[in-house]
């Protein structure tokens, strides 16, 4: 095991500021086709002045640039038809069906995530990055709010470049070249445990038989293919262990890295309205769906854009 646990501590205010100062988040560029307003000092920007259903190449280029700078883009008031949401997602890369849920009728690329009033669990609770157990996890997720509570059901995001940049250099060195085994069975339970577990969420999530034992090995610090920046890539709910080590050996360091990744200074919190569409980059951020709207219904439509093998 990398012996880095003793050096893992909360960054000082000075270390935090140094990391934040060098990030593009606080220095938005000048854009000609869109208006970009950061929502926190760490991550996320609201983008206005553009209709995503009819976006031209020039504006799309600016969206891609803004996405690389801010990691999460919030587009209020879009209300895209299913076909338009898929078309927009395709501008970011190939869009494939998500194999763990039945797709929306007529749109194999879209998953409709429905929370019913009686649901105990929600979809996407807990800090995570999407589908890290896949050999090629999605680069982007494109999520639109169709219906939701007036208050509650926010999504938080955490910048994992900052998480990496604020690790003590001995920790970074210790994690260099290390890989984590991400396992579907860890986050979604194994078959034996879930049999007969009954009602979980309104959207029937089903792990297909060929995915039951799915595991992938990914670097702990991955390099973003566009920005070249390093990001902490610990998806604690699904990362079962360090390569070459047992679950028991790995757990203390996994827990500590997970806690580090969620430090409030790395985060922003996004509030949804029907018609709000959010795009985030799974390669460099975590997200968390807040489950604080019991008794109400929430409907979201999701497309995921193909990514590369993490390096």
């Amino acid at each position: 095991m990398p012996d880095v646990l003793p050096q893992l501590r909360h960054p000082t205010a000075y270390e935090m500021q140094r990391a934040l100062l060098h990030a593009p988040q606080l220095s938005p560029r000048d854009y000609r086709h869109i208006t970009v307003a950061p929502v926190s000092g760490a991550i996320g920007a609201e983008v206005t002045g553009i209709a995503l259903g009819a976006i031209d190449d020039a504006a799309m280029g600016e969206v891609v640039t803004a996405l690389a700078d801010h990691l999460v883009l919030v587009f209020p008031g879009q209300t895209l038809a299913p076909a338009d949401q898929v078309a927009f997602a395709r501008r970011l890369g190939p869009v494939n069906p998500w194999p763990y849920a039945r797709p929306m009728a007529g749109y194999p690329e879209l998953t409709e995530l429905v929370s019913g009033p009686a649901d105990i669990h929600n979809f996407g609770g807990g800090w995570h990055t999407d589908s890290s157990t896949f050999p090629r996890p999605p680069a982007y997720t494109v999520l639109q709010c169709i219906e939701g509570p007036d208050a509650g059901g926010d999504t938080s995001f955490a910048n994992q470049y900052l998480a990496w940049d604020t690790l003590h250099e001995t920790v970074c060195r210790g994690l260099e070249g290390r890989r984590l085994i991400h396992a579907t069975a860890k986050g979604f339970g194994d078959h034996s445990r879930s049999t007969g577990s009954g009602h979980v969420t309104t959207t029937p999530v089903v792990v297909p038989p060929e995915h039951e034992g799915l595991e992938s090995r990914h670097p702990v610090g991955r390099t973003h293919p566009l920005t070249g920046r390093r990001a902490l890539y610990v998806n604690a709910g699904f990362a079962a262990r360090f390569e070459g080590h047992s679950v028991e050996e790995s757990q203390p360091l996994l827990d500590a890295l997970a806690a580090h990744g969620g430090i409030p200074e790395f985060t922003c919190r996004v509030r949804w309205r029907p018609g709000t569409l959010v795009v985030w980059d799974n390669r460099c951020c975590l997200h968390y769906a807040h489950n604080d709207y019991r008794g109400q219904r929430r409907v979201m439509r999701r497309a995921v854009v193909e990514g590369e093998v993490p390096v």
Partner: protein
Amino acid sequence: MGYVPTFTYQAAVCHAPQFAPRSYRHFTVSPLTGAMGADVEGIDLSSASDAAIAELEQALTDHIALMIRGQENLTPPAQIAFARRLGHVGIWPYAKAMEGYPEITELIQEPGDKYAFGGTWHSDSCSFEHPPKYTMLHCVACPPVGGDTGFANQYLAWERLDPALKAELEHRRAIASGRLGYMTAASDAEVQSHTATPVSFRPEELLEVAHPVARTHPVTGRKALYVNSSYTLCLEGESQKQSLPLLRRLWEHAITPEFTCRLRWSRGALAIWDNRCCLHYAHSDYPGYRRHMRRIVVEGERPV
């Protein structure tokens, strides 16, 4: 076929909205999350009627933290006068008061400051025998983005604790001390020389006091978890070392994202919160910008 997952990676923490739906006559209240927090608009704190103030206190009881917008014209004496309508105004002994206004502490963060005031989860001055019930901050200047304040509902934290653990902790007390946070800040010369709001503590001034792990709110009658990583030293009757594993578990649980909200500042806004049932955290994510708050605390009762 496949199998239906159990979502083992997340805790079952779901809850319905915590506030009672209520209509307000003197201003509008917009809840921010299902856990706590609301934006208030349409009230002038310097000229509000008694009925409006009573209603505001009701909203504060319901939502635990309020961000009251549009108070650009609230002068220091008017802020003190508003605070007095909510109770006795306390004097915070650990920082120099604003010139001419002993009740006000100015919290100023300059662009190059190396110490972030309030940058841990805490409830204000809970090492005092009578910790303040309310804290209010009036925003004189804030960065264009960043510097939010996070809050966590501690009624929910207590209610959602494992029942066996609740039973074990129900009648326990914990020792709170200013030694942890204050001393670190005050003893670090580097911090002191790069901080616009110097804090000064003499070790003999730093109190240690035993408070219930779960305190009962005098108005709502609900119990709230009352330990935090900034002040709580140990459980009464146990060493720090013995207490730490359980305390760490409680601290982590206390800030479960489902219990939280996040308030974004605007110039002229005044935020007020109830320290008896929430924790807060100042986000230090605005390097290069200045932030200036005027703080007043309203005295509270001894926690029971």
